[in-house]
């Protein structure tokens, strides 16, 4: 089942709708990195609210997405990890260190809006703009 990806401004929003198999996760990773190359994309939000399990494979893929996009100057926000899922991840011994997270999609959009406005030198140094003409 393909995860729908919407473009909203300079961000891609991937909203996971059903449980994902390993292949689905891998396909999502590939699509996101391909799209980040072809469009004016500053980052992606992956909404995982509906996922009731994030096991070691899923965590590995989410980390990989974040790392690959970071190398291309784009931002990754994982939104909507449920409280039980967060607990299971901690017990499993797998966190998402270094990966930006948000409470839900709304929170993620707020984070983007806030960052979008910050044009201060500090803001730039932590997150350089993708294209020259911004």
């Amino acid at each position, binding site marked *: 089942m393909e995860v729908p990806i919407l473009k909203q401004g300079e961000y891609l929003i991937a909203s996971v709708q059903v*449980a*994902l*198999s*390993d*292949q689905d996760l891998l396909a999502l990773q590939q699509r996101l990195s391909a799209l980040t190359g072809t469009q004016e994309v500053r980052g992606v939000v992956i909404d995982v609210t509906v996922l*009731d*399990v*994030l*096991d*070691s*494979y899923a*965590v*590995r893929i989410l980390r990989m997405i974040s790392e690959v996009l970071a190398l291309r100057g784009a931002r990754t926000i994982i939104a909507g990890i*449920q409280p*039980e*899922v967060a*607990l*299971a*991840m901690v*017990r*499993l*011994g*797998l966190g998402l260190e270094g990966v930006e997270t948000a409470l839900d999609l709304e929170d993620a959009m707020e984070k983007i809006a806030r960052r979008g406005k910050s044009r201060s030198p500090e803001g730039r140094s932590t997150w350089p703009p993708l294209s020259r003409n911004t």
Partner: protein
Amino acid sequence: MAAPFEKYLEPLAIEGERDIVSARERVRDAARGLGFSAVELTLLATAVSEIARNIIEYAGHGTISLRLSDSGRNPGIEVVAEDRGPGIENIELALQDGYSTRRSLGMGLPGARRLVDEFQIESTVGKGTRVILRKWKTSTKAA
């Protein structure tokens, strides 16, 4: 004393990566039927996901059987994952955080063990592996 696991459900064949998703859904449904809390369901489903993936990854295929205990005061579920794959040479190592023979995270077995109340593993090189997970509605393990 916990009641025995008297109800055996039809074993689930684990033959492809899609079956990992089916296995965690199946165990979730079964445990929900016993009245497990959302947290306990998620911990168990996550453990099953790891064990099922190991079957696919290392043995190619196998089965996952569920057994329920719901006559006692504290209902429980037993998950038996079996395969006739290559087996594990050094179980003690395999249970250590970060140990992986395929350069993965090596968190599957030790993580699954931490997610359930009881964990057993038997493995014979050349014969196969059996992992047994047990979880009780009221966890018998300190959080």
